[in-house]
């Protein structure tokens, strides 16, 4: 029997709610097209993504409440754009704290200031801080309001058997155990993924020695919402300290531990108090009054599975990869996994995809993880040098940075961003991608465009392929329309957006006409002449673009984007 904790977690700010456990009755449905193991942000996000395409899922959460502690607190603009698609960006924006500046200090001097670029055409700030419990709560509420999602709390998967066309899960509950058959299983069960262990799969990559305490305290500090990094502070020589503001006067303090200290020693209340007081004293806070909300110990790891699809089990988020927190790459990478996987799995289940579509999830996201690991390795080696050589170089840079400009960019660990699938198998091969002189290239996400006050292009994007046609005619090309209609008859969702140029107001056969006021769209998309078009996948990544689109070119582009990989059907 599985007995989750039914006492609400303690928190200074978050009202934990214990959800009723699901226990099986003789009449339960024990089949699901998709079983999602894990009811954290990744599992719930994926369930919501699948539901957008009409796919039913069963989400199994081992616990009966949302996560303990604030955990992932920084969400990137790309994550916010993904949240928008599943309907939770509004509440996250309302509660969250937007920010764009990071400051690095050494010997009391600010030696580097990161400024994340902002663009008037982006709806969301570069970063938004919000405690993970709130995000999970909003995702739970969205899932509960979605009839295609069944959320089963207190259900722990203890075994799996994979067959040719599905898998059978053994599920324990606070009541009876039961079996659940699923055509597909998504492992969204986190860093210590039980499914990964059950299947005997091993992560590849490096673990770093440096350990950090993560502590959330409540204190009123008159500081802006900016990231603070302190290198080699007097109270923690040789080590690094990070601070972030969270909503509700909660501050995240991360500090690196001396090499020989155990997590138990580090989390002892006396140790926490002494060090947090020392950090606050360094900020000029005398006799600080604060309360501890949550603390944990973290060590940087940069690991990934080599394949994210194992027969009928698909891995996403921390179950698939463990990434260092520096650069906010954990949850933000997981959301991009969900956004890549959702539509592919949905179209595969509906029988609309070529053989290569679902496989491209693993190809694209494993590659993304490996690139992130490469980048994250650089920041981790700077934050917590793993060897004598790296420590010497890091210390030399700290010292030089007081007077020499040229080393200061080394403080800037690149933060998580939207991945660019430049060499995806889904990108068109014979389009005009290389002939464009501007705009998002194949693999990059679409660029948002501000249409009016609080109205953006991305607000209009449906769960569908997006065909964006730049035109100065009153109707779209007949052959293009015929191709779109033929695909729609097969069940493929395609949204046609016309960008009306040269004074045209309405374009026939488009689902939506947007006027190219002041050449806004054409400039951002590098379009010089009417007739050009972009094709974007349902996750908003461009997969083909043409200077002149016709029906045949669209047919080829869609075939490639559906994973038919060069074969000429349908």
């Amino acid at each position, binding site marked *: 029997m599985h007995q989750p904790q039914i006492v609400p977690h303690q928190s200074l700010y978050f009202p934990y709610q214990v959800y009723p456990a699901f226990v099986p009755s003789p009449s339960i449905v024990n089949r699901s097209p998709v079983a999602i193991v894990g009811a954290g942000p990744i599992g719930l996000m994926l369930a919501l993504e699948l539901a957008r395409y009409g796919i039913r899922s069963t989400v199994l959460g081992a616990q009966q409440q949302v996560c303990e502690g604030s955990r992932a607190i920084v969400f990137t603009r790309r994550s916010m754009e993904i949240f928008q698609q599943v309907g939770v960006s509004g509440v996250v924006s309302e509660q969250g704290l937007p920010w764009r500046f990071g400051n690095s200090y050494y010997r009391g001097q600010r030696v580097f200031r990161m400024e994340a670029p902002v663009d008037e055409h982006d709806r969301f700030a570069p970063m938004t801080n919000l405690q993970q419990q709130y995000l999970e709560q909003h995702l739970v509420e969205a899932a509960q309001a979605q009839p295609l999602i069944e959320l089963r709390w207190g259900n722990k998967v203890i075994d799996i058997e994979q067959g040719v066309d599905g898998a059978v899960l053994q599920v324990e509950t606070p009541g009876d155990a039961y079996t659940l058959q699923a055509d597909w299983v998504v492992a969204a069960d986190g860093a210590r993924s039980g499914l990964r262990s059950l299947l005997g799969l091993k992560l590849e990559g490096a673990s770093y020695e440096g350990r950090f305490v993560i502590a959330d305290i409540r204190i009123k500090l008159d500081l802006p919402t900016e990231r603070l990094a302190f290198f080699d502070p007097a109270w923690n020589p040789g080590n690094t300290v990070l601070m972030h503001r969270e909503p509700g006067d909660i501050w995240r303090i991360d500090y690196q531990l001396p090499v020989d200290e155990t997590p138990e020693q580090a989390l002892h209340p006396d140790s926490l108090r002494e060090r947090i007081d020392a950090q606050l004293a360094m900020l000029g806070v005398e006799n600080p009054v604060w309360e501890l909300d949550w603390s944990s110990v973290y060590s940087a790891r940069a690991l990934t599975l080599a394949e994210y699809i194992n027969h009928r089990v698909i891995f996403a988020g921390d179950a698939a990869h463990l990434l260092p927190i520096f650069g906010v790459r954990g949850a933000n990478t997981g959301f991009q996994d969900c956004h890549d996987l959702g539509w592919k799995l949905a179209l595969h289940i509906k029988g609309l995809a070529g053989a290569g579509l679902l496989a491209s999830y693993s190809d694209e996201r494993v590659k993304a993880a490996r690139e992130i690991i490469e980048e994250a390795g650089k920041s981790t080696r700077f934050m917590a040098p793993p060897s004598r050589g790296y420590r010497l170089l890091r210390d*030399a840079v700290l010292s030089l940075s007081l007077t020499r400009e040229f080393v200061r960019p080394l403080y800037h660990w690149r933060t998580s961003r939207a991945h660019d699938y430049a060499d995806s198998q889904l990108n068109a091969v014979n389009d005009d991608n290389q002939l464009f002189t501007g705009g998002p290239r194949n693999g990059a996400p679409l660029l948002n465009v501000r249409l009016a006050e609080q109205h953006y292009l991305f607000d209009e994007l449906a769960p569908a392929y997006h065909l964006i046609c730049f035109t100065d005619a009153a109707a779209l090309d007949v052959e293009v329309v015929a191709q779109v209609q033929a695909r729609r008859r097969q069940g493929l969702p395609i949204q046609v957006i016309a960008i009306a140029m040269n004074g045209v107001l309405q374009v026939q056969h488009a689902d939506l006409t947007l006027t190219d006021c002041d050449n806004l769209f054409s400039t951002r998309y590098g379009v010089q002449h009417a007739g050009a078009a972009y094709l974007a996948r349902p996750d908003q990544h461009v997969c083909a673009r043409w200077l002149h689109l016709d029906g045949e070119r669209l047919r080829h582009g869609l075939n490639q984007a559906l994973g038919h990989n060069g074969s000429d059907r349908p």
Partner: protein
Amino acid sequence: MSQSMNVTDLERAYDRLAEAIDRTGNDSELFLVKLALLAAEALNDAERFDALIRCAGQDL
């Protein structure tokens, strides 16, 4: 490759470096790494710097 340093200049670099290492005492290793980074910046030639690292690593 640029012309070789003349012996007078080389002797000067020899003495200055020795004196600086003595002066920086326990921090001489950090000093040398800082110097190497400054030299890399002044050299502004990543491949040549790689070659110098290989050269310095020989016959230790």
